């Protein structure tokens, strides 16, 4: 069954409702929407290496799928998922290091800082999503995907000289957008730029 259609992207709450109804396409969209967030928490905040990181990443989505019915507010997916991801990471740390940790105890001070930074990054990426397509794509390719000018040029059929200037213009545009908003990035009601 599939109910995800083109047009404006469905809200988190709509996707959750469709997932509960057995819509596999909605699940795929939901996973894609939160994939980077989970990945960043696992790899940057908790610093799991690749093999463990992959297990933890998959485990987060398995638990998410199994527990979607327990989500109390369908539009508050991100904070719920953040908590779920932290719990899976801590479980993995406990299992690996045989250490005793309370559920809300962070193993490293820098983990908390990293989580703050990830939340800021999410807010910036959500703002990025409001920019025109040519800006979204080039900024994401260059910064988040770490693609070279050459790779970007080939993919977007742009001469290398144009890429640098477009990145610069788009970054400036993103900054202008950011300065125009004080409540940036709060689709799930929890993202606050610090």
């Amino acid at each position: 069954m599939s109910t995800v259609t083109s047009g404006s992207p469905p809200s988190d709450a709509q996707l959750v409702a469709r997932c509960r109804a057995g819509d596999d396409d909605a699940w795929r969209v939901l996973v894609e929407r939160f994939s980077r967030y989970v990945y960043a928490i696992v790899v940057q905040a908790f610093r799991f290496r690749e093999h463990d990181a992959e297990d933890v990443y998959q485990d987060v989505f398995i638990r998410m799928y199994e527990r979607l019915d327990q989500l109390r507010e369908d539009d508050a997916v991100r904070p719920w998922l953040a908590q779920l991801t932290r719990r899976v990471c801590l479980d993995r740390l406990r299992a690996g290091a045989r250490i005793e940790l309370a559920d809300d105890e962070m193993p490293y001070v820098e983990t908390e800082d990293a989580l703050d930074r990830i939340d800021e990054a999410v807010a910036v990426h959500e703002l990025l999503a409001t920019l025109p397509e040519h800006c979204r794509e080039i900024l994401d390719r260059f910064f988040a995907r770490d693609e070279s000018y050459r790779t970007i040029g080939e993919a977007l059929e742009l001469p290398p000289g144009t890429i640098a200037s477009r990145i610069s213009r788009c970054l400036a545009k993103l900054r202008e957008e950011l300065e125009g908003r004080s409540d940036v990035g709060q689709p799930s009601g929890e993202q606050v730029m610090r």
Partner: protein
Amino acid sequence: MTEINEERLAELLRALPPAPEAWLRAAQELAPARRTLDEIVTRAEADARFRQALLADLESALAAEGYEPPPGVVDALRERLRSA
């Protein structure tokens, strides 16, 4: 929002790279895979002959019934059949 210059913006854009494509795809296929798994387990609980066939040779029994689940589902199924 305060003190966000373009250098900081660039840093925050870099802070959210995509997960490896294979990880994303595997997570996206989780829902249909789980549904297949549940379907097979439910059938095995109701059909003793099917259950015996699964226990004897899981991969062959699945193929004979037209199931083509990914490796992760086969492993999970084996685990559930053992613990049942």
